[in-house]
């Protein structure tokens, strides 16, 4: 499996994400945001957490205009896989690859703690190694993780089984307790919690491992 991780100025989870992909057996290339093309023959693109461009204007808004992001959009339009975590999720919503928008947490606080998630769909490469309804513990670390969609869109996401994870105890005010959503073709996942920070015993938990294993299984057998 060939993976690329995009690095924006202000990304800070890029190396963690690369390590998580590597631990699952992937070859990982780091790609600078000013590059105009993703590497050839890529299976999946990781859009990491952090504070790209200092969160200026809106979280992810400037990164969504970076040269590499155009290549990322083309990659997803061709049916390529992508995983956006935290700031990466914000970038994916700002580009329109995923629906909705991420706003300031309802309690206005930066929240940094492990949270319990419920697996709402196992019908994606990212979630197939979990069981439906499984509770997993993954850390969050964000100020703007309050996922906002219209009631109509929420219903659509539910009908199409595109909610990947919900919070057991909603920390940030997200609509429908949503922690992660899947694209219509089920090949792009965006989520606020950090599965790449839960792949090693020393992280204090390994509930994120199944995500990278699932992606690996799906892409190797594809």
């Amino acid at each position, binding site marked *: 499996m060939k993976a690329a991780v995009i690095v924006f100025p202000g990304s800070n989870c890029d190396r963690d994400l690369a390590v998580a992909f590597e631990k699952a057996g992937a070859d990982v290339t780091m790609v600078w945001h000013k590059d105009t093309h993703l590497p050839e023959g890529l299976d999946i693109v990781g859009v990491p957490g952090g504070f790209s461009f200092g969160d200026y204007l809106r979280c992810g808004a400037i990164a969504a205009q970076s040269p590499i992001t155009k290549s990322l959009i083309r990659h997803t339009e061709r049916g390529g896989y992508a995983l956006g975590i935290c700031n990466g999720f914000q970038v994916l919503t700002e580009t329109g690859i995923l629906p909705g928008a991420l*706003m*300031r947490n309802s309690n206005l606080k930066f929240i940094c703690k492990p949270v319990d998630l419920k697996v709402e769909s196992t019908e994606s490469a990212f979630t197939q190694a979990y069981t439906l309804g499984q509770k997993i513990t993954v850390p969050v670390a964000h100020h703007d993780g309050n996922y906002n969609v219209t009631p109509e869109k929420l219903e659509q996401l539910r009908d199409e089984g595109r909610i990947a994870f919900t919070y057991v105890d909603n920390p940030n*005010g997200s609509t429908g307790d949503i922690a992660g959503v899947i694209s219509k073709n089920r090949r792009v996942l965006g989520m606020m919690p950090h599965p790449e920070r839960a792949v090693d015993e020393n992280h204090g938990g390994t509930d994120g491992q199944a995500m990278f294993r699932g992606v690996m299984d799906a892409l190797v057998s594809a």
Partner: protein
Amino acid sequence: MKVRVDVMLKTGVLDPQGEAVRHALGNLGFDGVEGVRQGKVIELELAAGTSEDTVKDMCEKLLANTVIENYTIEVL
């Protein structure tokens, strides 16, 4: 030419920051503050003759996130 763009959250989108300001005003003893919405003001210095359509394009592509925000354009 100078153009001013106001970006506000759409009606119906809960504004946590506005709510916090409303609470703070109440704590200061200002009664009757029934609602606060917080937005952004962006001032653009543009070449003379830049069309309003171009500014609109700027708003749609970058200055506002039209999923949750509305914008108004004012030529100063």
